[in-house]
């Protein structure tokens, strides 16, 4: 029980529980003030953000602390809540706190009056959502875990349905719920295998069990399936590109930035912590699924014509990369190569952290654009850097980070991942030795691809000429929105510039999970990132940035000194074309067209092209996910057919039902008799 005497004796866990309680209280107050929009926006959401910052501070100080446990007398009799705050949980709490602080601030300016769900209810759902994510991370038995997991799924489901009057949003929410529950079944079964017939569902008991390789493998595969459904791994990704655009932007930011990471936390918890055995093919499985997912995600994100769908596919890509990192770490760990395993795990964790920041930043920016223009289709945006400079410049940081460019956070993660893939020769199996460089090649390809996507996103939305007249009247984001985005930008920049300090935070996690860490090499120098040794590889983002900025400044000053700074504004030249309209720029389809052509077999493309004799020519190209047709629809058809057969049992006449009872009784008696 938390001691309530003086604050100084409170443990980290108590503080986390205080934050969670505070969030829930904020939610309840939101219900009380159901339609008092200004109060909810200006008081409740910023208050939630303050508690997020508190959570971040607690998590930072808990990162090095010894694990703390608590048993709360909640829930069913005989089944109290077991909670545990260890380094891994602390890392994820840090992620939750850091991102939700920015997103809550953004949300204070984002939610508007008269959009679907009343503001107070949204406030409740929102805060229950973040509170449940924090609790999932704290859970120390399968029971709490599942309760919180489902709370997370339900609260986010209702958030996705905020604008439930639109039919597409309803169907997106339905699909989301469906996949979430298919996944939850997998997780439940996984815990069932993990407790190994002891009937004790605490994680401490699961850690103590030594499963046979067969059962351990089943548990692992179930975990990958269950958590993968939530993380958007292939082939259970279909909900993600539908649910993200449907949700309000701060919610998509949280779902993509934080919730996907919580799903990966599940894989980490089960695969690295609860299961005591590690088998090499688990790593290969995770890597394979991860890289396939990443490639799929990035190829699809380049051809999207809607802002949020593009970002959603890009999230699929990033989750895939993180999974590949986890898989590699598992592979090394199964062969007892601790240093390399720690390197790969650090890369994956780093990617999670930086992706959380830049992707929520990008989703927030789509929200700001949506508010300013009412338009989410890339084909009708453009030129917003002139009317919305704040949003545009803040987004640029997120775009560069997402494209994996130095000196931002995304690059550090990618760099570490490539390093861990690169120095792998020496695996006992030559097949794996061959496999790993090929995977590195794929990662390089995916990383370069994401640059294409991000240039498309930023270029089409913010640069060029406005493709619609109303865009000229677009207004910049409000104070709260700017503040929230600024917070996330600061996160991206700090993650990019101070990798050593961030890696030091992950050291306890990697030490505990794979028994190795980077901190001993990293600690030698505060500005130079050296994962193995200095001759092998090093990277110094601060110097890197200084180099670019210095040469930039020098060139700027020198050009002005030696020559002049004269400038004239004229109409654009464009090779002497006398007039240009906004329609002559590349559209979103146009920009993605080369990729669509190269990766044609990936897509299911339906084209409607006008012939020369059409009076009213219509050009329509639809690019869809073939997996939807190959996998989801057939499964849906089979389910429908089965339920129709089962439905025939239900005649609606009492005599028939009595017959069933009678027949069952006879059968049971026969069985018992024997």
């Amino acid at each position, binding site marked *: 029980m938390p001691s309530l005497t003086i604050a100084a004796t409170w443990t980290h866990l108590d503080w986390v529980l205080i934050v969670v309680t505070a969030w829930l209280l904020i939610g309840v107050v939101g219900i009380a003030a159901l339609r008092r929009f200004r109060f909810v926006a200006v008081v409740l959401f910023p208050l939630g953000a303050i508690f997020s910052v508190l959570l971040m501070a607690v998590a930072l100080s808990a990162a090095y602390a010894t694990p703390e446990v608590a048993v709360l007398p909640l829930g069913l009799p005989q089944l109290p809540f077991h909670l545990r705050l260890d380094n891994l949980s602390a890392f994820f709490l840090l992620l939750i706190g850091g991102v939700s602080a920015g997103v809550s601030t953004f949300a204070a300016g984002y939610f508007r009056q008269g959009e679907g769900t009343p503001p107070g209810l949204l406030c409740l759902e929102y805060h229950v959502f973040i509170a449940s994510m924090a609790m999932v991370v704290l859970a120390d038995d399968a029971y709490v875990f599942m309760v919180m997991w489902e709370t997370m799924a339900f609260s986010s489901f209702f958030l996705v349905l905020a604008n439930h009057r639109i039919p597409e949003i309803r169907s997106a929410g339905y699909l989301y719920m469906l996949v979430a529950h298919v996944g939850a079944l997998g997780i439940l079964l996984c815990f069932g295998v993990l407790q190994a017939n002891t009937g004790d569902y605490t994680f401490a008991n699961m850690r103590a069990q030594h499963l046979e390789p067969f059962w351990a493998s089943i548990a692992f595969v179930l975990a990958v399936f269950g958590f993968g459904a939530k993380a958007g791994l292939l082939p259970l990704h279909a909900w993600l590109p539908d649910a993200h655009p449907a949700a309000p932007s701060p919610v998509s930011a949280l779902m993509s930035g934080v919730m996907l990471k919580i799903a990966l936390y599940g894989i980490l918890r089960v695969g690295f912590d609860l299961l005591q055995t590690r088998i090499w093919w688990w790593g290969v499985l995770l890597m394979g699924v991860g890289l396939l997912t990443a490639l799929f995600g990035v190829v699809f994100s380049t051809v999207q014509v809607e802002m949020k769908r593009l970002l959603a596919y890009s999230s699929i890509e990033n989750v895939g990369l993180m999974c590949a990192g986890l898989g590699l770490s598992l592979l090394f760990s199964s062969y007892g190569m601790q240093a390399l395993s720690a390197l790969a795990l650090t890369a994956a964790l780093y990617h999670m952290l930086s992706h959380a920041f830049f992707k929520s930043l990008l989703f927030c920016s789509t929200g700001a654009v949506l508010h300013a223009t009412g338009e989410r289709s890339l084909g009708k945006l*453009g030129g917003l*850097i002139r009317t919305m400079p704040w949003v*545009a410049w803040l987004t*640029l940081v997120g775009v*560069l980070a997402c494209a*994996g*460019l130095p000196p931002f956070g995304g*690059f550090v993660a990618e*760099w570490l991942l*490539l390093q861990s893939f*690169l120095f792998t*020769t020496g695996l006992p199996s030559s097949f794996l*030795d061959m496999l790993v*460089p*090929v995977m590195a*090649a794929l990662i*390089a*390809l995916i*990383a*370069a*691809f994401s*640059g*294409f996507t991000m*240039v498309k996103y930023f*270029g089409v939305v913010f640069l*060029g000429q406005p493709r619609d007249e109303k865009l000229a009247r677009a207004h910049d984001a409000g104070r709260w929105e700017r503040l929230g985005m600024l917070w996330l930008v600061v996160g991206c920049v700090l993650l990019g510039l101070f990798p050593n300090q961030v890696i030091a935070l992950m050291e306890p996690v990697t030490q505990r999970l794979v028994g190795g860490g980077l901190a001993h090499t990293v600690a030698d120098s505060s500005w*130079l990132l050296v994962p193995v040794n*200095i*001759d*092998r*590889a090093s990277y*110094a983002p601060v110097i*890197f940035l200084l*180099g*670019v900025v*210095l*040469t*930039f400044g020098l*060139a*700027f000053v020198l050009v002005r000194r*030696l*020559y002049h700074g*004269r*400038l*004239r*504004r*004229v*109409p*654009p*030249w*464009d*090779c002497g*074309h006398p007039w240009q309209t906004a329609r*002559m*720029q*590349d559209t979103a389809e146009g*920009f993605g067209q*080369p990729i669509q*052509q*190269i990766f044609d077999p990936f897509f299911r493309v339906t084209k409607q092209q006008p012939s020369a004799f059409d009076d009213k020519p219509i050009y329509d190209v639809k690019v869809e996910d073939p997996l939807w047709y190959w996998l989801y629809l057939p499964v849906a058809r089979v389910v429908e057919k089965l339920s129709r057969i089962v439905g025939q049992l239900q005649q609606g006449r009492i005599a028939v039902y009595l017959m069933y009872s009678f027949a069952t009784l006879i059968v049971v008696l026969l069985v018992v008799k024997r």
Partner: protein
Amino acid sequence: MSALGVFSQLMALVLALLLAPLLTGWVNQWRHWLQNKSAPSLLQPYRTLHKLFNKDSLIAEHASPLYRFAPYVVFGCMLLASAIIPTISTDLPLSPAADAIALVGLFALARVFISLAAMDVGTAFGSMGARREMLVGFLAEPALLMVMFCASMITGSTSLTTIVETLAHRDLAIYPSLLLAGVAFTMVSLAENARVPVDNPDTHLELTMIHEALVLEYSARHLALMEWAASMKLFAYSCIGLALFFPWGVAEANAPLALLLALPVLVFKLAIGGMLLAMIETASAKMRIFRVPEFLGTAFLLAVIGLLVNVLLGGT
């Protein structure tokens, strides 16, 4: 960090700035000779730069600040890139700041900025150029990375200076993996530097242009910086090629004499390289834009095969 190290770092910077336009002029000269044209002077690129810097910059009415500062970013990226490539010495204090992967990242950063700037004005050619540049980039970048990885696998390092030192000290033997990587690298550098058969540095007003379409709207000092950056990119790529495949003659730490000798060696190697580039360009025809992914995909695959060969044969 020794005084000599700082000196060779400064030398590397100044050399990159000064030699880059000369290299461009040299390649142009050879190309004209090979094509039976009368060649411009070797110093023509300097004159052009000087002329451009003197002119008033004309900028589209609605261009954003991004458009104006992109040339400086691109220029800065290229200069930093040339600073960390061991051109005449491996004793570079800046070298630990960025290894081969970060170098590729630096090129990518420049590419993203130049493409964004091209999209900023919102003309048909600009966005077309940006799209094509990114199309070339998304295949060329991983291919370049794979070439670097081949060298890294052999030398056990991604630091460029260590790679050069290790490669220069090994016995003279042909590594099959490096051979494959070399072919891949040549193909990538042709594409990345907007050369025939991927792009034509001479054309304007042609629907096939890539690099020229990107900088079409730029004028005066901004154009000068872009062009200078482009020639530094060619210089940087040539130096990477020399560093990976012909690493001999590069000075190491505490070797002032070798440093003196390194400069003529570098100029000699670059001269040969420039000549070869002109020959390749003259001998090949420009290809359709949709053949470019095949071309670069081949380069990528070659580099990956190089990597695999290296793993198979045990590399070191």
